[in-house]
Structures are given as structure tokens and as C-alpha cells.
């Protein structure tokens, strides 16, 4: 469904490329997590899939089509096959929940009867059937994200991209969102989700693609993820009895230092300075 062949993307010549010779394939109906620290290239990956930006080298195939060959006037139609969900929901606060979801159909010129038929179904799928008339400002964060998901899938795209959809939500709400994404995935939609949240990755046990500095450093099915820096000496001690690394949240609760307090990119940045 999504195939990257030796894809390199640099935003400007001087700095390190955001993605470098990345090759990977996500099959139809698959659920993949895209993990890695900020700046590892997750967002660039999603942008390349959406043809928001162009690859400098290599080829990106989406639904069997090389995106480089999609002419600019065809890009809107191309994007109708992809739903996107963001960390900050991006809802229209002056419209009701129903109108927000209907908006995605209206701009494509769908008939009023189709909208009246399909929007309630989608809202039911995300569990908001009784909140149709509310404004986003009257909803909780989790509910707002569900509206955003409903809007992303109302036109039945084959692919759903989620860019840290649980980034602004508490753990319990996040679980609800993940259940919805899982249900969407089971209906046949390919889901690619970029995230930092190790708890979620570890509970879902799906394919994990880990990026670091623009390279794929790990690609495992039914895998786990720990966002801590591997060279922390305490890491050895911080394993559970079964050998799996404990989640960051668990470590934090035991009073260990939060690795995120030290920005993980510092090391790399100095490296860059030297290189320049």
C-alpha cells in the first residue's frame, strides 16, 4: 500500500537529510507504528506519503502509484485516498460535530442525502452518536480527536495516517482512541501512526518501525518500543522480570530521572556542528 524505495529527503543542502535512503513497505490492511524521537524523520515520512513534499531521491509508491507521477492537478484526488489525523485535532470550532465531519464530504461535492446517511454511521463508529450537535469547544480532548478521526475516515480512504494522535491526551483516553484506530484497521484500512507513546506501542503489539536521524534502525512485527536513550546505565536494571524493558512511565513512577529532561538530540547536534 505504501512503498519507499531508497527515499532521501533533505530540506536544505547544508543540514543532515530528514530521511536518508529509506526503504520500506507497508502492506494493505497493516497497522504500523512509526516511532523515534523528534527530528527522526517521522513527519517527513508522512508528508512524503501525502505528497506534501517531494523526495530528493528514490521513489514513493502509494496504492501502487508512484507519487512523483501524480500531476499537481490530480493531487486533490490522490489525497482523497488518504485520511489524516493530527495531534492538535484541527477541528472547526464554529461548526458542530456533525458539520465538522460533513465538511469533508461537502468540499468533495457529496450529496446532502449521502451526508445525512454516512456521517451518523461514522460518528457511531467513533462513539459520538449522541454528540452530533455539540461544538468542539464543548468536548473533551479525547472526544475532539474522535471527531477528527471521523472526519478523516468519512470519505472511506484506504490509508489512515495519524501524526501523534494521542500526544495531547491522557493514558486512559489514549486507549479509547487506539481502540477506534484498531477497529478502523480491522475494517481493512491501512493505518500508519507516528507516536512517542511507548505504553501504546507496547499494549498494541503491532509492527514498529523505528527511525533515528533519518534512518530506519528497527522494523519488527508485534514489537515493543522504549523511548529512553539506550546508553543510560540504569537501562539494564530497568527491565522487567520477563526481560522486556519497562515503560518510561513505570520508571518515572519509581523516581528515576526522566530521559526526556535531557533533549535526546543534543548529542547529534554537536556532531553536526563539528561536521560543519
Amino acid at each position, binding site marked *: 500500500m505504501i512503498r519507499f524505495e531508497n527515499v532521501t529527503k533533505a530540506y536544505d543542502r547544508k543540514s543532515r537529510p530528514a530521511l536518508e535512503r529509506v526503504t520500506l513497505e507497508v502492506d494493505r490492511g497493516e497497522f504500523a507504528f512509526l516511532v523515534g524521537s523528534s527530528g527522526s524523520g517521522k513527519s517527513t515520512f508522512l508528508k512524503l506519503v*501525502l505528497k506534501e513534499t517531494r523526495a530528493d531521491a528514490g521513489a514513493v509508491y502509494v496504492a501502487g502509484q508512484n507519487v512523483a507521477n501524480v500531476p499537481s*492537478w490530480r493531487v*486533490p*484526488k*490522490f*489525497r*482523497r*485516498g488518504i*485520511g*489524516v489525523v493530527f495531534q492538535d485535532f*484541527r477541528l*472547526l470550532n464554529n461548526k458542530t460535530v456533525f458539520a465538522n465531519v460533513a*465538511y*469533508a464530504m*461537502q*468540499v*468533495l*461535492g*457529496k*450529496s*446532502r442525502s449521502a451526508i445525512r446517511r454516512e456521517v451518523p454511521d461514522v460518528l457511531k463508529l467513533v462513539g459520538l452518536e449522541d454528540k452530533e450537535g455539540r461544538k468542539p469547544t464543548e468536548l473533551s480532548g479525547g472526544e475532539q480527536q474522535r471527531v477528527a478521526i471521523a*472526519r*478523516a475516515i468519512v*470519505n472511506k480512504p484506504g490509508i489512515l495516517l495519524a501524526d501523534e494522535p494521542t500526544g495531547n491526551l491522557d493514558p486512559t483516553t489514549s486507549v479509547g482512541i487506539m481502540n477506534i484506530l484498531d477497529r478502523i484497521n480491522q475494517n481493512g484500512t491501512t493505518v500508519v501512526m507516528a507516536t512517542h507513546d511507548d505504553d501504546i506501542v507496547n499494549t498494541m503489539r503491532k509492527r514498529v518501525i523505528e527511525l533515528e536521524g533519518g534512518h530506519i534502525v528497527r522494523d519488527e512485527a508485534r514489537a515493543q518500543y522504549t523511548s529512553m536513550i539506550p546508553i543510560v546505565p540504569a537501562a539494564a536494571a530497568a527491565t522487567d522480570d520477563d526481560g522486556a524493558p519497562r515503560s518510561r512511565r513505570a520508571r518515572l513512577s519509581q523516581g528515576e530521572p526522566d530521559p526526556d529532561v535531557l533533549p535526546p538530540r543534543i548529542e547529534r547536534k554537536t556532531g553536526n556542528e563539528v561536521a560543519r
Partner: protein
Amino acid sequence: MRLAFILSEIGGGLRRNLSMVISVVLVTCVSLTFVGTAALLQMQITQMKGFWYDKVQVAIFLCSDTSNAPNCASGPATAEQKAGIQTLLNSAAVKPYIKSSVFESQADALKHFREQFANSPIKDTVTADQLPSSFRISLVDPQKYQIINETFSATPGVDSVIDQRKLLESLFTFMNAASVVAIGIAALMIVCAVLLIATTIRLSAQSRQREIGIMRLVGASKTVIQLPFVLEGVIAAAVGALLASAAVWAIATFFVQGFLAGQFKDTPFIAANQALYIGPLLLILGVALAAISSSVSLRRHLKV
């Protein structure tokens, strides 16, 4: 459905930056009113030229008791002198240039004078022998006045040769200058209008970044995204153009027909309904300007 959606987007956009939209309407209205006024002036000039050039003639005034030109030293023109002029008019050298010629006697001159100054007390103080008799000549080509002048100005019994067109020429020059000024002001105002429309559309697009982002993500076509913005500018400009047409029509009706025509009774003025032809032109001009400036603005500020 898509049409309804675009219309509702336009309505929302117009409501959201109402003050900018009003200023676009006003600036377009003022600039196009100037364009319309210049057009009215030109129509008026054409009308007057057509009217006067047919009537206006070259007049060959004969010597009378009161004339003091050197040619008239021997007193009023005699009958032979008059006949000599008549012969010259019919000669092969001059004839081809003349459409028609009429002799106006002193009595005729008095009659015309009295008609012309019917409202003035001066008409009763003038007698026939104070007015010169004259040949009134219509030329085939009014530009060839010089030939008549050269032929007749030295002929005995001729006081002077006058091209009446010369008298009107200065009036037309003045009116042309006025219309050039109007066009100049209109051009400046149109620049303002174009820039203002471009700015308004840019602001409108920026205030709807979020909607635009969502439309792009769900795959709305370029037309659906851009059309509401372009139409917003076009509608504002069209309203301005309609107001300008109304203003031009009002100028033609109330100022030209209502006031000027009453003041200058024997001048042909343009009719109010002639101003109606200007309306559609202003509308087309306004809409075209808005469409061009808003699409240029969108191309620069709205990535699709």
C-alpha cells in the same frame, strides 16, 4: 451541493471581513465612477462635434459701415464685389471644397441675431446696418478651411474670413483635458482598488488557514478551495461597479439633463439613457479587475 457549499463559504467570508469588503466596494465605486464620467465626457464631445460640425461654417463677412479692416477702406461692399465673390465661389478652384453656400443679408443677420439673443435686452438695441452681411459656407471637409481663407481674405469687399470651428476647438480642448484628468484619477483609484482587493483576499485566506488546510487534506479540488475567495472579490467589485453605474446615470440625469441642459438651451447634451450603455462596461471592467487581482493574490498566498 458543491454550489451550495461554495455559496455558503462566500457568505461566511463576506460577513467575516465586512469592513474590508465595504472598503473594496467603495474604492471600486469611486474609481469606476471616474471612468464612467470620463466616458460621459467623451460621449458629450462626440455628440457636440457631430452637431456643431454640421452647422458650423466658414463665414465670409462682407464690408459694412462699421467695419474697419484695411480691405474695407472704400466703404461697404458693393453689389459688384458681392457678385465677384459669388463667381469665385463657383469657380473650378474652389467649388470642389464647398458643400453649400448661402448668402446672409443684413436683414437675415438681424433676424438670426434676434433669435439667438431672444432672452437678452441687447436684441432691441441692434439694427440691421450694424451687422455685416456674409456668405455662409459649409465645407466638404471642415479641415480645408485654409484654402477658403487664402482665396477670399484679400478679395475686395471681404472684411474677414472666420472658421467658426476654431471657436469650438478651445471648448473641445478643455473637455478633452477634463476627461484626461478624470482618466488619470481613475487609473490611480484603480491601482488602489486592485491592491485593496489583493490584500482583502490575502487576509481572507489567512483567516481561513484552518479550513483551507482541512480542505486540502480531504482532497478538495483547487476550484472548490479558491473559487470562494475569487468570487468574494468579484462580488465586492461588482457591487462597487453597480453603484458606480448608478452614479454615472445620476450624473447624466440630474446634472447634465436636469441642470446643464436647462442652463444652455441650444447645446445638444447626451441623453440620460446613453449613460446606461456605460453601466455594463463598468461592470465588466470591475469584475475583470477583481478576478485578476484576486487570483494573482491567491497564487502568491494560498498554497494548494
